[in-house]
């Protein structure tokens, strides 16, 4: 197989640069279609390495208030699965390298039709899927069909995933592993640094896949601290809050891209200090 995916290329390049990936989460269509498009298109320039794009759902059980509200804003402004895929397709006409991972819940995919969704997603240029409510027990629903379409299925590992269960979680995982830093919903409390580093090290013994860490990471300092030992750092609710707190679409774009730049700068520099210590 000579084919390599955008995600593989991305992680390989970052390994060369000895730095973690910055992964941003935004909900597609939040706060409205046009602003969301501007937000998306500006992310790579602001320093995002991998884009997570949320597919809004009316009942986001694993999300905290920030992303719940983002989903409602998007849905109230007419966002649909088809429009989300169209956003990716348009983005791909300008950017053929930045990986895009769609994140969400199973029901909107199920109702769109799994085969139809995977066909359209692959065509649009989607690289991976994170579907919160599909544990490995339901791999035949979407995970295995996604592989047939060349779309990675990114698995979540959590603080409750014990050694007995881990092999099952990792079995059909691809792209990268998303380590959920705290038991809870998105935008909740910050993870404890010591425990987190140990958890990532433990996970690494069982998988060759890159490990991203997310949930509760809001600041450049936190991102840098976690980026020292993880392969990617995910920031979501903090970016979504920028949209919530902005008075105008222009301000939303400016705030989101501003925070992304700060985070990007800090993850780019996060391993420099520790390298100096090695000499």
């Amino acid at each position, binding site marked *: 197989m000579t084919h390599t995916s955008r995600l593989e290329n991305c992680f390989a390049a970052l390994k060369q640069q000895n730095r973690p990936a910055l992964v941003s989460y935004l909900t597609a269509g939040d706060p409205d279609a046009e602003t969301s498009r501007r937000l998306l298109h500006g992310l790579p320039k602001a320093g995002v390495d991998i884009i997570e794009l949320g597919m809004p759902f009316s*009942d986001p*059980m*694993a999300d905290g208030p920030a992303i719940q509200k983002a989903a409602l804003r998007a849905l109230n402004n007419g966002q649909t*699965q088809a429009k989300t895929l169209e956003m990716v397709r348009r983005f791909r006409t300008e950017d053929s390298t930045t990986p895009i991972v769609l994140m969400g819940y199973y*029901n909107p*995919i199920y*109702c*769109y039709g799994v085969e139809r969704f995977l066909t359209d997603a692959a065509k649009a240029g989607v690289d991976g899927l994170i579907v919160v409510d599909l544990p490995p027990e339901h791999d035949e629903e979407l995970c295995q069909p996604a592989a047939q379409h060349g779309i990675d299925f990114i*698995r979540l590992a959590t603080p409750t995933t014990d050694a007995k269960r881990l092999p099952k979680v990792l079995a059909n995982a691809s792209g990268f592993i998303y380590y959920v830093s705290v038991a809870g919903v998105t935008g909740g409390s910050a993870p404890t640094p010591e425990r987190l580093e140990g958890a990532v090290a433990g996970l690494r013994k069982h998988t060759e896949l890159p490990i991203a860490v997310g949930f509760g990471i809001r600041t450049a300092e936190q991102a840098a601290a976690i980026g020292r030992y993880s392969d990617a750092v995910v920031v979501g609710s903090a970016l979504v809050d920028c949209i919530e707190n902005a008075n105008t679409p222009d301000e939303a774009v400016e705030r989101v891209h501003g925070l992304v730049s700060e985070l990007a700068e800090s993850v780019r520099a996060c391993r420099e200090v520790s390298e100096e210590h090695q000499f």
Partner: protein
Amino acid sequence: MNQPVDVSKSLPDANGLFGSFGGRFVAETLMPLILELQDEYTTAKNDPEFQRQLAYFQGDYVGRPSPLYFAERLTEHFGGASIYLKREELNHTGAHKINNCIGQVLLAKQMGKKRIIAETGAGMHGVATATVAARFGLPCVIYMGATDIERQQPNVFRMKLLGAEVIPVTSGTGTLKDAMNEALRDWVTNVDDTFYIIGTVAGPHPYPAMVRDFQAVIGHETRAQMLEKKGRLPDSLVACIGGGSNALGLFHPFLDDLDVKMIGVEAGGKGVKSGLHAASLNGGTPGVLHGNRTYLLQNEDGQIIDAHSISAGLDYPGIGPEHAWLHEQGRVEYVSATDDEALEAFQICCQQEGIIPALETAHALAEVAKRAPNLPREHLMVVNLSGRGDKDMMSVAHHLGEKFGVKQL
């Protein structure tokens, strides 16, 4: 419809599936706990000591068995089938909900959990949960939609008296589905010490099967009571359905008795055609929500649509997965009753039998009103009188107050 295929009481399968319905569609954080719960429940089911405790509390605390009462005046009123009421409203806390709560709280104790959470719609499950939490000395948090808190004030007060913390849920539409979302969010955050007592036959496996089994005491008793009274099984069973726990509790022990007809009554709201209803089977499509695949009220893009019903307890856009399966198998007939039909039946029950039913239960009685007159007196029809209507006084006064000269509340 008369020849159901492969109706089996052995379901769900090991993966929690009833045909294609059910399953375990939850976040990874919850999976280890759900698997543990499944093991614990399987053990408890076969543990004589657990069963002894369950029977003890069902008897001395809940007040079981509940009577199977021949509703003579209601039978005369409709002029057809002989109507029997399974008096679940006489249970401690006034509804069938406590049957399940007793079972789950015993399991929570066995698993060493320190905190109880639950969702509630009409407040009956919330009250039952708060009750068992008080009895077993466990702190309890109840999530309840802000809209439901408005229309079910007496139950909110009861829960607080029982020592529970009632958290209003304003996200989404502020009803039962949002309360369930919020309870799931609490659970995923406090997964180590918290037991989530789900109130209906829905949610991730093993909840639909576990809640059904705890509620099946209704059907088992009905069976024995009818055999004792009439020397034979009933001809038909009627129950209202929100998530569907009182219905499944009554139906399940009779599933293999193919001569026993079963009718589940969904909340038709303003009418299924109006779009303002809570009839997931009659007006919904299959989808995945709250941990299981089942019939849901949703738009073509898979976004959940608000349910509408005069009864807060039926105001849920889904239904237990076993009902979805029984619907597709044709074993149970699922119909709906509108708000107006339920209000009418509510009054008939009050006036003919001196029993004030819950508005939820009134939906089942509305179907009886349609069906009983056309059946012979030999036809034995059992209606699950799933709850009492004290909690609904304010809603009913709002709708009927003027008729009785009561000031609109």
